């Protein structure tokens, strides 16, 4: 054990240490476009000034697929989806729900949920997000 954090977010846009887990985005101050990746400029208006925006943790399934055949090293089945979180589209898996079309439906309300992906030699847990039925 060390004195440092015992958890690390799976991606840098997942915030674990500031209240309830939530996602953040780079928001263009010029046009409001939101991005989850590291930015060089805005693809919409070419601006270079960004602020941090908190993404709503509740949303609605805008699209999904149930992947049953994937590249080596990817566990199947899993439900990949695009969730509309208060007007911002987010990519994420549907978790804590059977992966079949009877349980996962278009328009289904969901909320952000987290789970531990694994633990490294220092005891640090990598925590990922997904969306579960709300």
């Amino acid at each position, binding site marked *: 054990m060390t004195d440092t954090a015992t958890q690390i977010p799976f991606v840098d846009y997942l915030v674990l240490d500031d209240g309830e887990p939530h996602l953040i985005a780079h928001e263009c101050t010029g046009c409001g476009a939101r991005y989850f990746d590291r930015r060089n400029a805005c693809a919409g208006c070419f601006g270079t000034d960004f602020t941090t925006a908190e993404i709503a943790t509740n949303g609605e399934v805008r699209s999904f697929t149930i992947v049953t055949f994937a590249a080596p090293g990817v566990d199947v089945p899993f439900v*990949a989806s695009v969730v509309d979180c208060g007007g911002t589209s987010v990519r994420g898996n549907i978790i804590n729900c059977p992966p079949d079309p009877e349980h996962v439906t278009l328009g289904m309300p969901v909320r952000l949920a987290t789970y531990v992906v694994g633990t490294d030699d220092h005891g640090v847990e990598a925590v990922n997000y997904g969306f579960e039925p709300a």
Partner: protein
Amino acid sequence: MSRSDDIWILGIHMTKFGKHFDKDVVDLGSEAIMGALADAGVTMADIGILAAGNLMGRGGIAQQLQKQVGQTGIPAYNVSNACATGATALRTAIMAVKAGEVDMGLAVGVEKLAGVGLLGGGGTAKSDGNEWEPSGRYGAVGPVDGRIGTEAMPGVFAQVGMEYGHKYGGTSFELFAKISEKNHSHSTLNPLAAYSKAMSLEQIMGDIMIAYPNTRPMCSANCDGAAAAVVTNGEKLKTLSLEQQRRAIKVTASVLTTDPYEEACQVLPNVNTLTRNAAKQAYEQAGVGPSDLDLVELHDCFATAELVHYDNLMLCEEGGAVDFFESGAPWRTGSMPVNVSGGLQSKGHPISATGIANIWEVAQHVRGECGDRQIDDAKIGLAHVIGLGSACGIHILEKSAV
């Protein structure tokens, strides 16, 4: 009479798609080039520019091909634009002719894909290091494919179709399977298709699920193949034989677009807006509308993709793709035949060849040389291709007036 800036396909050729164990990419590409030159009635000595595409090889395909079919010292462009690579090669040759730098150009696309399996996704292997270390543009401590959505093509395009269903309603597993049933049925008339067996709805729905709602036969078939085309301008065409003029196909529109920024486009690739933009430009260039088309070859890389492109190409009213399909319109006996070649699901999808092979199909119909699967009296046709990332190529072809 032809205007000097008119663009014509003088010759075009597509190899048999399928498994070519005894041929490499240079063999297949050479076969396509020599076939297109013979079809055009010209030789490499007449060609002023070569544009060539091959994604899975070691690079420099244009020069590798020149070393087999003719090293004439002309400029060669090696192009790469995902599944739109073939269309991009053709567009490159057309731009050079249109700019007046050359009066004849050659484009070729070739791929060896049989047996490569799933495309996209996977990526870097899970680190076997002992400490989480954020890397990449998402600061991820491991591969995101499978953990934050999917990056493999079947799932990406499944979501494209499901999104359409969410927006407009009416989609189902069965509906998407029926689209595949149509294309597999069409393929029975295509001797160059990789797979030319009809499949029942039950067979399609009962096959291995890859990414719901796409089962295996609803996915494009990885295979080997090549296609090539010779293009020229109206002035040059006038100097050629009557037979060459009679068989030349007019390219009334040649358009390439990329995806413009809009909300969500970097979360799930948006294949809709760039197709709609390309279609609008193409119809305007050609001076025709969707109702003037006698056939369409569109990029059915997955059954779920074909549906959205009925709408994007404006073959139906906005939101009306399900009704359009249910009406029977896109069957070869319908009012707007779509993918009478069998489409990518049965003809096959040797990536770089696809964007020229779909033009070959339309060209053969407007020439009236398509044999058993000829669409009667076809005069105008459209060929569409999408490369994820994204690029969209649309060409509209018209029968020669000579």
